């Protein structure tokens, strides 16, 4: 989420009008002024709840503790007070604070120490210990330990109380750091994870990561949409549209008060995607189809076909069902067979060749391993002649093309672009390049 200085000023102005009295209204106010979309509202709401989750429970906890402590303590206190009072003169400020058990004061001291230790810089969970000890140091733990050592000799009862209080303090600091990590470190950890995920080979990611991958792909789609969904009409300044100008100015004797300029119309991409869904390529196809079909605003028309042994159209399945269900459905119909590129291309030519127009980009996604069957390269040539371009995305590395049963070199001649496409990042680049050719 991006919050500019102007926005934070606005938020502060709004808050100054509203006041801090009611947390619900404060939350609404911040959501109104800072968030700029529904997603951001959700994220900010969660962040708000997280940030304000700490003070209240901890305060009530310590309050309870001190209440119960006070209930138990009075007789003891009364007895030990004169001696204890004399003792506490020699104690460090932290020890005194802990003994008086003023939760507000302790919380304030901790907040000061936390900001002095730059707690908001915490990014990774490995830094937890470091920050905890830093905060404790700032609060004067060293002096406290000395006091403890002294007290164990002179006043064991007081020392015991102080030890319990110190343990409670350590716990509070730990909680505080954990919360800060959750608040400040989440983004960094997520970025790191996403970066790894983005460059991992799609075919080999683990099942538990699939959901994360889907989210990542959706984010990619949003980025591509934002980049390319700009208006498609662009004025060509300098080229006067004479006919429209005359017509528009007919009312005042064709004296050209209003000028009309020629416009350039740009096509939206039309895409026909042929996806191999056999064995190892299936996962890449899965993510590719998800990406292509989330580009509604950028791409005017997508028709998707899936094949291994034979080819079927899957556009409707992808449009009507959720990502998981759609893939399950497609796999049930054509998946997991051994691939036969020749007969799959033949299926396409027979039934859907007319969907390919001179504005269409045909994308084939597959490893081009046709199990030594007829590759059907001549059909690909005919597709290539009809279409604007043919793009082949191959999940295998370039080195392996042409070895074994790979027919890549034969297909390559009929493709305008051939690229390796094994990771999410390569996928994004490939799709972005396809869309960019229409701009």
């Amino acid at each position, binding site marked *: 989420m991006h919050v500019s200085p102007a926005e934070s000023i*606005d938020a502060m102005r709004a808050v100054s*009008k509203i006041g801090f009295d009611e947390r619900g209204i404060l939350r*609404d106010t911040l959501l*109104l002024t800072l968030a700029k979309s529904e997603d951001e509202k959700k994220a900010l709401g969660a962040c708000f709840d997280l940030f304000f989750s700490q003070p209240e429970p901890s305060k009530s906890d310590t309050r309870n503790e001190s209440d119960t402590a006070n209930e138990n303590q009075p007789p003891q206190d009364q007895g030990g007070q004169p001696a204890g009072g004399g003792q506490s003169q020699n104690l460090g400020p932290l020890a005194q604070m802990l003994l008086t058990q003023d939760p507000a004061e302790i919380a304030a001291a901790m907040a000061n120490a936390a900001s002095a230790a730059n707690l908001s810089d915490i990014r990774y969970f490995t830094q937890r210990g470091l920050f905890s000890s830093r905060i404790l140091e700032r609060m004067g733990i060293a002096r406290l330990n000395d006091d403890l050592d002294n007290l164990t000799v002179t006043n064991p009862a007081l020392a015991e109380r102080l030890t319990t209080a110190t343990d409670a303090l350590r716990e509070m600091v730990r909680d505080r750091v954990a919360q800060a990590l959750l608040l400040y470190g989440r983004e960094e950890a997520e970025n790191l994870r996403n970066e790894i995920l983005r460059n991992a080979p799609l075919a080999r990611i683990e099942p538990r990561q699939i959901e994360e991958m889907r989210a990542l792909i959706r984010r990619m789609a949003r980025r591509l949409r934002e980049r390319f*969904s700009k*208006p498609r009409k662009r004025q060509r300044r300098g080229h006067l549209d004479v006919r429209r100008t005359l017509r528009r100015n007919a009312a005042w004797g064709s*004296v050209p008060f209003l000028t009309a300029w020629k416009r350039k119309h740009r096509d939206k991409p039309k895409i026909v995607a042929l996806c191999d869904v056999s064995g190892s390529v299936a996962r890449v196809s899965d993510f590719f189809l998800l990406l292509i079909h989330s580009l509604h605003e950028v791409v005017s028309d997508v028709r998707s076909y899936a094949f291994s042994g034979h080819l079927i159209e899957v556009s409707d399945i992808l449009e009507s069902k959720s990502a998981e269900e759609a893939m399950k459905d497609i796999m049930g119909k054509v998946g997991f067979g051994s691939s036969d590129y020749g007969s799959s291309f033949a299926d396409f030519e027979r039934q859907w060749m007319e969907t390919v127009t001179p504005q269409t980009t045909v994308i084939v996604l597959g490893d081009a391993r046709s199990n030594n069957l007829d590759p059907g390269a001549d059909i690909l040539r005919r597709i290539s002649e009809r279409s604007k371009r043919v793009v082949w995305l191959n999940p295998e590395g370039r080195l392996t093309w042409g070895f074994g049963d790979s027919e890549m070199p034969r297909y390559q001649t009929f493709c305008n672009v051939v690229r390796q496409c094994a990771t999410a990042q390569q996928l994004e680049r490939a799709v972005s390049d396809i869309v960019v050719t229409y701009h």
Partner: protein
Amino acid sequence: MSEPRPLASIEAVESGLASQGYIASRQIATAVYLSEQIAKPILVEGPAGVGKTELAKAVAGWRGLKMIRLQCYEGLDEAKALYEWKYAKQLLYTQILKDKLGEVLGGAETLHAALDQLHDFGDVFFSKEFVEPRPLLQALEQPRGCVLLIDEIDKSDAEFESLLLEILSDFQVSIPELGTIAAAVAPTVILTSNSERNLGDALKRRCLHLHIGFPEQKLEERIVESRVPGISQTLRKQLVSFIHSIRTLDLKKQPSVSETIDWARVLVLLQAPELGHEMVKDTLNVLLKYESDVEAALPHVTTFVANAQRQNVFG
């Protein structure tokens, strides 16, 4: 009601809007209150028919201000939104004043002198008399302030957004020939969007962002109560509960608040004492706007009606 009513507090906004028949959630009331306090426009997003446009009308009605509405569409430009020169009038005046011009310029001996004299007239033909104010300029010129509704901003082109920026942040517009025109009283600006396309960050930054979704059951009951006064309590509860069940289905277009109100009116007209299967099946087309949606909903009607009736007995 010569002075526009001030906004005292969030509660005052809530009750004020309620007096216009608009039942606002606290979020909405907070947004309206804040927009007045820190002088920022409100950008309202949400599905069609949840009362985005109604909100502007209610605010205008309650505060006794004039409402100026600018409906956005593709190709809307500054000539239609901001101002336009009255070309015909300019042309006519030059024709009529031709002789006069000749007289004035007659004294000049050289072309240069004539040109100098012409300069002395100043920009007679590009003065305020020849400006045709369009909604945005009208809104700035209202002496008592007004409510400016910029409806469906997402339908307009991205260029138009940039045109709005000056108005939204400073409540002024710059006309090259006339200079900057600032608002006499800053208008209350409400923009609505159906999220058909993403709006630019610059625009969003200048606004309070308010998202109105489908209301909760309690709130929707109050809305129906205020909008359809003749409806019985039993029917109202059943109807709203039924609509909430319908919204759980996968539909092309979910019924929104405006459909709920329409349907409630229909049922009152048909004098239905409470929800019945046959009645619901006959009038489902008021609620659902696609044939496929009606077909998808039909098999569930019986269950939903039964649920609604049961809920009403216990609730």
